[in-house]
């Protein structure tokens, strides 16, 4: 018993229904935009700036210690009452236990908020611990002239990587392949961002790194197919009769289909396992990469080649194709 993809794939016209396939990522991007506008994207501290508070408990308290637990709960309560969504962590230094709180900027002027927090935290501190509460509670602002710079730099990096890929493909192939590959890339990046927004994953610098990685990686799938197209074009030049570009595109996709699927699969599996088992910060990185890989293979097959045909000035369906469809 053989399970073979080739029978299903051999006859399928990948290029014909381009506009339908194109609508899918478009829809995802649209949903992403809507979700982003309605709920606000989950932008991380790398971009918003924020505050970090370090509270030195002036002594060593284990995690199960009652005083520690009571203080910890108070801290949570204070944060909640002030509407602050923060990460609260505990650390051990050589002598003392330290509680660290980090949260993003929620309003433009955090001064009043932070001042209020400071007072309340000091009050709580006094109840449980000796030592000067003012000295042991330290606020640090993560300043933000850096923030808009960070954003600009991230966007710049993404653009540079896309341009670099464009140049590379134009050199290795031709400008039509380059253009269709880069348009596909841009779509991949946008879909990645959209899916990340929809899933409310925090957008940090590591996410930007994931986007750039996918830009570099997913272009491989597109290259595989364009490589075939180039080969088939050469063969077609010697053949008799007219060859339609859409037919060449289709046959190229078909003959490299296995390669495309298998290579994506073998990369997807380890990253998926990593995303399932890993800690949250790894998940934040792995999930966007998974999105990117999935949209990458989709667009390498259904979008890039069709774009290439269109950019070459030909139609997506040739006369010979039409005949087959009728029969």
């Amino acid at each position: 018993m053989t399970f073979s993809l080739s029978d299903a794939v051999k006859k399928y016209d990948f290029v014909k229904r381009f506009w339908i396939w194109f609508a899918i990522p478009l829809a995802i991007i649209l949903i992403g935009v809507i979700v982003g506008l309605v709920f606000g994207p989950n932008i991380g501290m790398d971009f918003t700036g924020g505050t970090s508070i370090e509270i030195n408990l002036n002594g060593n308290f284990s995690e199960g210690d009652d005083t520690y637990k009571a203080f910890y709960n108070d801290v949570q309560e204070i944060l909640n009452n002030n509407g602050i969504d923060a990460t609260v962590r505990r650390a051990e230094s050589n002598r003392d236990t330290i509680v660290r709180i980090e949260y993003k900027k929620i309003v433009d002027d955090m001064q009043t908020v932070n001042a209020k927090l400071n007072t309340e935290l000091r009050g709580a501190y006094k109840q449980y611990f000796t030592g000067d509460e003012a000295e042991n509670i330290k606020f640090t602002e993560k300043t933000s002239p850096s923030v808009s710079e960070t954003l600009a730099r991230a966007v710049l990096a993404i653009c540079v990587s896309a341009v670099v890929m464009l140049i590379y493909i134009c050199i290795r192939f031709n400008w039509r392949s380059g253009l269709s590959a880069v348009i596909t890339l841009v779509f991949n990046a946008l879909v990645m961002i959209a899916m990340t927004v929809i899933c409310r994953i925090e957008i940090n610098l590591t996410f930007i790194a994931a986007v750039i990685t996918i830009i570099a990686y997913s272009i491989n799938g597109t290259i595989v197919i364009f490589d075939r197209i180039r080969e088939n074009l050469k063969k077609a030049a010697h053949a008799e009769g007219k060859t339609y570009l859409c037919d060449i595109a289709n046959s190229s996709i078909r003959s490299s289909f296995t390669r495309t699927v298998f290579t994506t699969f073998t990369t997807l599996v380890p990253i998926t396992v990593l995303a399932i088992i890993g800690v949250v910060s790894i998940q934040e990185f792995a999930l966007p990469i998974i999105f990117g890989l999935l949209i990458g293979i989709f667009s390498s097959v259904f979008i890039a080649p069709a774009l290439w045909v269109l950019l070459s000035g030909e139609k997506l369906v040739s006369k010979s194709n039409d005949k087959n469809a009728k029969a």
Partner: protein
Amino acid sequence: MSKLKSIIILSIIAVLIVALAVFTFMPLNQGELGIYNFHSISGYIKLGFDLKGGAYVVYDVSALEGEDTFTEANVNATVLRLQELLKKEGYNEATVSVETFGSNKRIRVEVPDVEDTDYLLELLGNPAEMAFVAQGYEGNYKEEGNEAYYFLSGKDVESAGVTLDPNNSSYYAVALSFNEEGTKKFADATTASVGKSISIVIDGETVSSPTVNEAITNGQAIITGNFTFDQAYQLAMSIQSGAFNVKLDSIDSGAVDATLGSNALRQALIAGAIGICIVMIFMGLVYRKLGIVANIALIIYVLLYMLALAILPFMQLTLPGIAGIVLSIGMVVDANIIIFERMKDEFHSNPGKSLENTIFPQGFKKSYSAIIDGNITTLLGAAVLWIFGTGEIIGFAMTLIVGVVLSFFTSIFVTRMLLNLILPFDRKNYRAYGLITREGVDL
């Protein structure tokens, strides 16, 4: 190649692999390896500080008081000073790096394995700006509306230490030693100021104003102020850390928990192992003997990768770096898949041709272009990340780059060599090599 030769070479390779695996993952103690106490090779892999925990400070760099701009050389000198300072305080694994944002520069200091951010910040976070001021003496900077001239600043200081106060032995003082340029400047200024006073200004406050009795040409100066030992020490440290060629403003600092990191590392390793196993099963099923060759090549790749991580001096393993390793593994397997699919194509268009002479070599030859393209684009992406990235991301970029370079080597040389080695055992059975099925799995 004869079967015998194959067996010999394969055995040698097997032994090497096992040895490398053992050395990589198992620490050997004193008794077992003779004199040396050898941590496993993987123990030598430097963990990035997001995995190990520690503290970090990021400074914005600007020009010193009285200067308009700073040069690249200033920044580099500052980096060196910071590194020396950290080493002196015992932080041997601290890293100091420069980040460029357009025309702005930042210096990032990461010190793994330190919980006490307080001490670190005091050490680094408050670089004191020091200046020597002489009345009516023309130095290199004049403050507006003031008669005073600053003629020496922190960057002229070679070192600062604590010494006993020469005037009153129950107090301490700070002993300054100037560098060559500073010595000259100080000599000139003291010569011109004999009989007058020179003020020592720290962070804008005049700390002391001794009278100059004679010209001081040996480049040594003492700052007195009835200091206790602690005060003198603090001041000396501040001056030392303020003795930079640029002005540093701390804009970000914080700490990372170690426990977060070690959990993450363990889980990532388990995930990596599981992922690799699944991929190996897949390759074995689909490509049979070819698949087994690919799997052995993969094992060799992973071991070489660990070796590279341990040996290369600038490599640090960060959390995103783990994802980078996983991606690189995906790439190696991809390369092998490309080669094998080409071999299948070759076989189907020329059935019956010799494996050894035609199908395998042609398969390799025709897939080079695709493999090279794939690797180069990933390399370019990693380069962009390296240039634009900070901290963790650079760690990720480096793991990708190492991965790509190694995968070039592995998928082209290692796979080929292994194939040539197993050929003598079976030169004809196309099915056993997984070449017959067109796509999918033949059950």
